[in-house]
């Protein structure tokens, strides 16, 4: 386990070179503080202070814009749907990857990580290439009344693509460390596979599934690159909150953009904080 509990760093302080190493330590610490403070905390505080400089007026006028409420609603619904699908298929994928050995397992595992590497904009372009009217697949689906490009279904597909790794990668290590003795005992005692899974495996995985699901929900709330291409950004139909913020910003309505941003950020930030409370054991936390 981690050996950070050893207070060795501290006992060394009053040695012969104490003053110099003390200075060095403060220098490093100041460097880290300035880096994170200046690059992350300061810009975030700018958004929040700008968004609420006039109280709630900016938020109110932003929400009065056509399509604003619909955009936030669509973002919440699609992000929630993507998170739930992830909870189910992410758990299934990690179960298959950890418990089964079959040809192509390594490839499957690598493909699950692909969305981490592929630029989100490229994801959007790929979806249009496959489901757009110019492709046979897209044409066939259109003919059968299934609309993906420039439709909410396209937004959902883009979100599912982009958030695929989250649940898999949080559940996988927990499942790999799970002792199989309990499951074997349950099966010897006559429990069905399904019952063993529901009563033994699932409870042990629940925190990891919840953490991965929340993380993918937070990520889906802010997704921009893939959606802006595949959704067509039709007001009151496929316009999402991040694209709405982008539209406000490019119309130089930065106060209103900041107000909506602050709300969106508050939502995803809360989710991330809750996630880390749930996951807890990331090894790098005290």
């Amino acid at each position: 386990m981690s050996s950070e509990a050893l207070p060795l760093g501290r006992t060394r302080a009053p040695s012969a070179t104490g003053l110099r190493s003390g200075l060095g330590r403060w220098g490093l610490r100041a460097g880290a503080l300035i880096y994170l403070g200046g690059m992350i905390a300061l810009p975030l505080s700018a958004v929040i202070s700008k968004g609420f400089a006039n109280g709630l007026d900016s938020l109110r006028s932003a929400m009065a814009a056509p399509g604003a409420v619909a955009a936030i609603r669509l973002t919440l619904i699609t992000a929630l749907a993507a998170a739930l699908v992830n909870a189910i298929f992410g758990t299934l994928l990690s179960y298959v990857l950890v418990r089964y050995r079959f040809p192509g397992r390594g490839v499957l595992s690598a493909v699950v990580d692909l969305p981490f590497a592929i630029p989100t904009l490229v994801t959007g372009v790929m979806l249009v290439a496959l489901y757009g009217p110019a492709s046979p697949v897209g044409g066939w689906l259109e003919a059968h009344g299934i609309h993906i490009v420039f439709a909410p279904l396209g937004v959902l597909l883009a979100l599912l693509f982009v958030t695929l790794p989250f649940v898999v990668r949080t559940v996988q290590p927990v499942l790999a460390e799970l002792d199989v003795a309990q499951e074997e005992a349950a099966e010897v005692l006559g429990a069905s596979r399904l019952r063993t899974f529901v009563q033994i495996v699932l409870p042990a995985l629940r925190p990891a599934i919840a953490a991965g699901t929340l993380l993918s929900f937070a990520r889906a709330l802010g997704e921009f690159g893939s959606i802006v291409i595949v959704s067509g950004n039709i007001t009151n139909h496929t316009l999402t909150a991040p694209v709405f913020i982008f539209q406000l910003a490019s119309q130089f309505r930065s106060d209103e953009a900041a107000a909506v941003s602050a709300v969106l950020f508050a939502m995803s930030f809360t989710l991330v904080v809750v996630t880390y409370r749930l996951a807890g054991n990331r090894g790098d936390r005290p």
Partner: protein
Amino acid sequence: MSARVESTSPRDPGALVRTLLILLAVGYVGILVLAPLGGIVWATARAGWSNVSTTLNQPDVRHAYWLTGVITLITVVVTTAFGVLTAWVLARHHFRGRGLLNAVVDLPMAVSPVIVGLMCVLLFGRGGWFEPFFASRGIQVIFALPAMILVTIFICIPFVIREVVPVLHEIGVDEEEAAKTLGASSLQTFVRVTLPSIRWGLMYGVALSTARALGEIGAVLIVSGAIQGQTETATLYIFRAFEERQEPSAYLVALSLAAISIFLLVTIETLKKHKARR
């Protein structure tokens, strides 16, 4: 390690369940990820070779690739250097506010790229906090390279730190203490003892950072102004080509970025195995 579960009962109907579950998993990933990938390969191939030469010979496209390269390089250098420093402080120093600092590192993961771009505009744009300072010195930040680099750095900050901190915890301080006792300076200890131990984790973080920097769009779109041939990165070019209905060019450049990312991913997987073996 846990493959035993299936082998304990090879004759039960579990074999059917197993096959079904594997097919379901492979089918889901196939439809969700591989089919779109096939779609873009097909769409690019259909446009033919002439598309390749006409697209790659456009000065705008070449400039876009070059700009993406410059931004990625600077971002990776900065986030690696400061990332290692910050990871060191988080893993080795104990001080009040460390927990808070730890939480701040994760913030960029929770912020939509669009919001990142907006933050930069609010700080450096007209009426922004820092605008008077840079304007009086004639330094253009917004709609220019500096802002594009700043937002990309913001987005890539967590990767190196999140990969290196756990490794630092894991290797502990014993070897570093031994080196110090034997008279090595702090710098010597770091370069000779610590750096070799965190190497694989660090390279994994760098690869993730590179992939993310290459593909950034939301933040860069807002702060760059997307001026054709000037502040247009590869992703911004794809965006514009799509809007201007030049799909074949967009497909080609998008496919090239996907190819670079997939190459990086393979590198990442290899590094992961190294990391696990260490």
